[in-house]
Structures are given as structure tokens and as C-alpha cells.
């Protein structure tokens, strides 16, 4: 199957998604940053009673917190992107790529049929999926007879 067909047919739930960081909208910025770090991610889903109400990413941190008179005790809802563009776990990988391109997003929150926060898909998840499923194109680098090494091997 070609990469293009795969992208159209594979659902987001089949991508190598990582468990999301989730916080309540009243959670402090400090708690949110800790939640993100503990999961080794770059964003957190902001919820209210399980429903997705916002997204807080490292870009929000850069633009609204770093270098500003930061209030790490302030609630995350002050810094989040409210009502972000979202997709469902059953949308296609191509839909995720298309939305990322159209909106210039790197991170898209995922919700279930009831609007409950269900996960997050990032551009990195898509790249990882493609590299793993098309190893011939990505992981198995063929020899390059004209390659010149920058340094002598072992030096």
C-alpha cells in the first residue's frame, strides 16, 4: 500500500499516540507545566469536567509566559488557547495532516463523540508512524557510494 493510501485509510487512533497531559481549567500554570513535564510532552489538554475547553502548548508558554511578568500561580485558562481546532480518534491521519497545514498547528486535540478529551495528535506522531510503516523509505538508509565521511571512523 502506498503512503498516500495509508494516510487516507489509517485512523488517528492507530497512530503511535502518547498518553496526553490533562489539567482542569482552574489548575495553576505551575501544575500544568509539571503535568506536561511528567509525561515528556509539549502540551496539555485543558478540561472542565472531562470536556475539552482549551489547549496549552509550549508555544503559549513562549509567547505568553516566558519573558513576561509570569504568574506561575495563575490559572492555566489565562494562557491557554480556548476552544482549539479538534478531531476525533476515528478521523484519518490525512485529515490530521490537512488540519495541521491549514491551521499551521503542530498539535491537535482529540475528542470522543461526547466532546470529552480523548488524546492529542502531533506532527511528530505522524512522522514516526510514516517512518515506522515505510521503513524502506525512511529507516533503512541504503549505502551511498559517493558518501564522504566528515571524520575518519573511530577518530
Amino acid at each position, binding site marked *: 500500500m502506498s503512503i498516500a493510501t495509508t*494516510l*487516507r485509510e489509517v485512523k488517528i487512533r492507530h497512530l503511535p499516540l502518547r498518553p496526553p497531559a490533562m489539567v482542569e481549567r482552574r489548575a495553576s500554570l505551575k501544575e500544568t507545566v509539571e503535568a506536561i513535564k511528567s509525561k515528556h510532552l509539549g502540551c496539555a489538554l485543558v478540561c472542565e469536567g472531562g470536556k475539552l475547553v482549551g489547549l496549552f502548548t509550549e508555544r503559549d508558554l*513562549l509567547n505568553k509566559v*516566558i519573558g513576561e511578568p509570569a504568574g506561575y500561580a495563575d490559572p492555566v485558562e489565562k494562557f491557554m488557547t480556548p476552544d482549539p481546532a479538534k478531531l476525533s480518534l476515528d478521523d484519518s491521519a490525512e485529515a490530521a495532516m490537512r488540519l495541521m497545514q491549514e491551521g499551521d498547528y503542530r498539535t491537535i486535540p482529540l475528542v470522543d463523540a461526547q466532546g470529552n478529551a480523548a488524546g492529542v495528535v502531533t*506532527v511528530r506522531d*505522524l512522522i514516526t508512524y510514516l517512518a515506522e510503516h515505510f521503513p524502506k523509505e525512511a529507516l533503512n*538508509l541504503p549505502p551511498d557510494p559517493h558518501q564522504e565521511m566528515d571524520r575518519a571512523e573511530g577518530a
Partner: protein
Amino acid sequence: MICPHCGHDNLEGLDNCEQCLQDLRALDVPVPTGGLQKHLMEDTIGQVPFDRLVMVGPQDSVARAVSQIKAIGIGQALVVDGGRLVGILTERDLLYKLAGREADLRQVQVSQMMTPNPETVKEGDALRIVLNKMSVGGYRHVPIVRDGRPVGIVSAKAIANFILKYSALDF
């Protein structure tokens, strides 16, 4: 794997024919099947639009780097010393090393926060090479260097957009 020189049936993956010792390495190089696969294997990084660049020095303050990054609306700066790439300062570095700390950013040097010696690619490298590096290393931005000097940066998003562009034409 049949040797084209003597017809001996060799095991897959051998470098030389067991019978006539002819070089077989060119035979099992993966060949693109067409369409998007072909583009990923043969197109070079120079054919994908580069992200805009911010360059700072390792002794610069983080405050200065952050204001330059914000001014052009990107998420990272390349750290350059004497023209050569020595590190990259990304949003991820700021999140993991700075967030939650009350620090005067004018007193913190870029070299204390940056990721030193980042993985790089060259303009002439095939796209699959950057796809490989992003996937294996988990990077979202890979600097492009020419003789050790940074000339651009390629993002995971640019690669994803490239794939999307060709997947729309590919059936």
C-alpha cells in the same frame, strides 16, 4: 540474489558474489516504487521550504534570544559561534529547563539552556534522511548546514506538508 555477472544464486544481502567476487552492493539498494515514495527517496532537503532562521550567540542572554524568536513568530533559535553551529535553543528547552523558575532572563546565557551539538542535515541529503532523523531522535526541527555553517532549518511540519502535497496527487 542472482549475480548479474556469473549467474550464481547468492544469499540476500551479500556484498560480493560468492562465486565470482563481483561487487553486488548496488543490487539491493531499495528502489522507489513511484509517486510519493519516489519523492521521499530522491528529492532533497533543498526542495522543501526552509523555516525562517534566528541566530544567536552562546553568550547572548536568553531574554534577547526569546525576544528575537517571538519577533518573527517561530519556536527556536540556532546558536552560532564564530559562524559555526554549536547548539539550538527551542521552545522545548525553555519549557523543560526554564518554566516554573523565577529567573531573570537577562542574566541567563543561551549556552546554559540550549541543546548542544544538534543533529544536522545537508541541503543535498534526501528527504528520507531527515525523516529518519526526526523519527529516531524525536526532533521537530533539524538545522541544515553547509561546511558546518547553518543555512536553514527544516521542520517536521514542512516535511508533513510536503508529504500531504504529493499524497494528494498519488493514488
